[in-house]
């Protein structure tokens, strides 16, 4: 894909985030979509492409009254929206559609109108993982971390610092769910969930949603908001079974998607002003920093523990507070994208001064899938 041919011209989250007991899941989609359409100064009838995950595109298109000529229902977990951005950019460039709406929402906390997630007993996961007591992401996603720590000499204190630093970012964000400062001791003494992870190293469970609107860069300058251009993109999938990853020292989906996006963007790591790495659990930023090539994996724990990613640090990371402290409705990738867009527009609550390039890296499932989007505000 060519650089900077497509831009984000509308971006918004649901009006409320956190606990939203007065809205069903599809209404959360609609709330975010209407906010994004207003942000872009568009009418519903201007939208000719739609992408969403978990909920079907037909569900959301019909509910909103949209008549699309381009549809993407890619649903690979929490990074689905990174893949939607990539696919939408290619579709707009190819002339398949002009204005794409991407929506996410999940009634993750209130569970209103939420589709059931189940694992059939004759699926591969149902046969070769479920019988051993996996029960939800906290029992699965952290399984690789002890191996990763042993291989690279990462300490429990270093991984605890991920949560501490992200809480520092969240404290600057009025919409963050958790804002009170925490220490490494707080993290390591919090309630045990799945050793080695405690509750402060696991994502929040909230309600909310977000939506993006993309169009060609040529049209983008006529919109009310500062355009945020798509500079580079990457995607991949590995396996739906965490036990079958090629290695626990790295994620193959990350090492495929991330470098692909950097190559397409034509940038070096030193060019990155702002970074989002989907943090469903506290080890993910370490995997991301290593697998995206920012540094060897051995250095990732120390890099975060020494404060390089905190406010004022040289690589601002997860500046909304992340899935650990901002919000996590189940598929957090959309909120990472929203924060990258805010940073590129220059309107983030914890704005990184003069940021020009933002890398937004997502994960789906338990390292099952990955998508990376690199944004810029300069064309």
């Amino acid at each position, binding site marked *: 894909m060519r650089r900077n041919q497509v831009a984000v011209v509308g971006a918004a989250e649901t009006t409320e985030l956190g606990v939203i007991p007065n809205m069903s899941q599809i209404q959360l989609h609609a709330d975010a979509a209407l906010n994004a359409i207003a942000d872009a100064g568009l009418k519903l009838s201007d939208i000719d492409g739609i992408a969403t995950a978990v909920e079907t595109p037909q569900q959301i298109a019909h509910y909103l009254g949209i008549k699309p000529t381009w549809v993407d229902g890619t649903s690979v977990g929490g990074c689905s929206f990174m893949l939607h951005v990539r696919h939408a950019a290619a579709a707009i460039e190819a002339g398949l559609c002009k204005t794409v709406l991407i929506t996410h929402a999940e009634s993750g906390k209130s569970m209103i109108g939420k589709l059931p997630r189940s694992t059939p007993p004759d699926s591969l996961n149902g046969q070769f993982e479920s019988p051993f007591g996996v029960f939800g992401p906290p*029992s699965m996603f952290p399984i690789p971390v*002890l191996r990763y720590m042993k291989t690279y000499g990462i300490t429990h204190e270093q991984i605890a610092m991920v949560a501490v630093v992200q809480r520092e970012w969240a404290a600057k964000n009025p919409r963050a769910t958790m804002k009170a400062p925490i220490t490494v001791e707080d993290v390591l003494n919090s309630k045990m969930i799945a050793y080695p992870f405690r509750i402060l190293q696991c994502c929040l469970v909230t309600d909310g949603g977000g939506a993006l609107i993309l169009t060609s860069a040529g049209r983008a300058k006529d919109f009310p908001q500062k355009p945020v251009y798509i500079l580079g993109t990457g995607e991949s999938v590995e396996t739906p079974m965490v036990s079958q990853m090629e290695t626990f020292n790295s994620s193959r989906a990350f090492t495929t998607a991330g470098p692909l996006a950097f190559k397409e963007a034509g940038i070096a790591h030193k060019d990155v002003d702002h970074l989002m790495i989907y943090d469903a659990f506290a080890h993910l930023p370490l995997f991301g920093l290593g697998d995206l090539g920012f540094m060897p994996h051995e250095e990732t724990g120390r890099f975060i523990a020494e404060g390089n990613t905190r406010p004022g640090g040289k690589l601002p990371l997860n500046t909304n507070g992340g899935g650990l402290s901002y919000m996590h409705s189940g598929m957090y990738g959309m909120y990472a994208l929203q924060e990258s867009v805010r940073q590129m527009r220059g309107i983030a609550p914890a704005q990184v001064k003069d940021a020009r390039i933002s890398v937004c890296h997502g994960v789906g499932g338990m390292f099952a899938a990955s998508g990376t989007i690199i944004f810029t505000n300069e064309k």
Partner: protein
Amino acid sequence: MAEPARAKPKPTPETQHFWDGTAAGELRLQRCDACANVYFPPRPFCPSCASRKVSVFKASGKARLYSYVINHRPAAPGFTPPYAIAVVELDEGPRMMSNIIDCPQTPEALELDMKLEVAFEKLDDKITLPQFRPAKG
């Protein structure tokens, strides 16, 4: 009311040989006749070279502990926390999820790379799970 039961696998045509194996006290893997790749989970072709000429064989049952969590909450139905959910690396190469039995479910007792051997836990007449315990000697 009966205790909630642990999730029970339901074999498919492609995996039946594996579950027949565990019921007979064997851990069965597949090897590609064309490229010698040993792989898991079961499928009637080689995921490395796409050959459909593959053979089922009895694995040694020897493994080492690759990684794990000790799950506290929420516990899966049929499990009493804390319990370890492990991934073991078989001597033949493939990895599989399992539990570590006959061993305290603690970080001190569960040492990465410790040697393990397969054990079989019968759930009913059709399904026996492959489990692993610390290797003797």
